[in-house]
């Protein structure tokens, strides 16, 4: 196996936004399901309001 490749987080740089492992205990943590649910709800809400208006 080619060990040199991909060692130690080289691949972690595909995004423009960087996320580290460190987290502050004060931070508000969001469940990923909440993000999806919020997105779906926002979409449905706006669509519904468009229908009634």
């Amino acid at each position, binding site marked *: *196996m*080619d*060990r*040199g*490749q*991909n*060692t*130690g*987080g*080289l*691949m*972690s*740089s*595909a*995004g*423009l*936004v*960087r*996320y*580290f*492992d*460190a*987290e*502050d205990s*004060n*931070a*508000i*943590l*969001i*469940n*990923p399901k909440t*993000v*999806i649910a*919020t*997105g*779906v709800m*926002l*979409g449905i809400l*706006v*669509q519904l*309001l*468009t229908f*009634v*208006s």
Partner: protein
Amino acid sequence: MGWKEAAEPVLTRMPAVQRPQKHVPFKRKLAWTAGILVLYFFLTNIQLLGIDAAASEDLFGEFRAILAGEHGSLLQVGIGPIVTGSIVMQLLGGANLLGLDTDDPRDQVLYQGLQKLLVIVMTALTALPMVFAGGFLPVEPALQLGGFTFDQTQIQALMFLQIFAGGVLILYMDEVVSKWGIGSGIGLFIIAGVSQMLVAGFVSPSEEGFFYSWYLILTGQIEVGSIVGGDGLYTLLLGQGDIIALLTTVLIFAIVVYAESVRVEIPLSHARVKGARGRFPVKLIYASVLPMILVRALQANIQFMGQILNRQTGDASTIALFGNELPWLGVYDAQGQPVSGFFYYFAPIYSPDDWMWWTGEVTQEAWMVMVRVSVDLTFMIIGGAIFAIFWVETTNMGPKATAQQIQNSGMQIPGFRQNVSVVEKVMERYIPQVTVIGGALVGLLAVWANMLGTIGAVTGTGLLLAVSITYKLYEEIAEEQMMEMHPMMRQMFGKE
């Protein structure tokens, strides 16, 4: 130690998506990624409440291909604010003005917080002029919701809130993919947008669709004209025939996939385990093409400024500030495109019609077109190289960081002492040079592809990004699958 302490209470409290507590199985990762992708497409199809869609005009224009999102939808701003925020972070970080040490956990938290705060501020700054300045998003004359009638300003405020919510949502969707899925959300949204445009460019049942145009040409419904006279040749190659665009698109695919495999390989051997050998690849497109987004976004922001200034002057074609007409700054045509002045020269080339002055499609003088092409080239080549350097530094791909990684994995370069600074010296011989050449090359490739045109007008940068992100995604999926099959591998890849 000024700003860190002052900003700490805010930055450490920025809401973040939870990290998975333990290893997420590959199938689950795929499910999260697919879920976010479906949500993304769903949201791009929800029209903003209160928009007069027929009269609106996309401020992003040709930049839409790389900034994702959809005009007039909840995802109006796309990844624009994230990219702009990232530019600021890159410049501050690359010039080391922040004084943050990304190896220190406390500074990492600050970095993350600052990054998020910047994106949220940028979302507001992008959405504000879109809604309130110059009618890029014209509002409906009247809006009634349950007996309550909104006036124009209230509708605008309502639209701003929706766009802002959409922009913040994109940021968190990216975070979900980055932490729970495969690759990054931004990459995913770019591929989604570009592929959509590319497929539409091929199969759309209108003259924009490649296949449909050829059907019309072959059945004689499009007048091709004489091939010898030049008119017919123009139609086939650059007009509806789009042969050159097809060739460019295919060629870019091939070049990127080939260039991904061009690399300088530095041999490694394990210090303790005899016979364990490896190679460290320094890829030609080492910094990948992601820094290219930053250059394009910089150009996009310059053009937004022009558009906003132009809208402020009303019907006049010349930009006016404080009552003075400033033709050197920009003159716009009826379609809102710059035709001369600063904003014309700084507008990137999108299609052959922008620069082939001999075809009669261009209203400018040949020398003006030449200046514009050279400005675009300079911007992309030098900008590409500079941002590639910053990118390598801020994402820990620089000589120092990679030397440390090699050292930590217990490897060494045969024939050299096992010492971080020795490995760093060797890395310094390759990484900076390869980065600059790669960045400049990608810039050149993007301009060249735009000049010749691409199928579906996805732009050279869009195509380069889509192909190389997909390639990376493929590598990542292959790595994931291998780790699924051999849990031991996880340790070797440095993950817990």
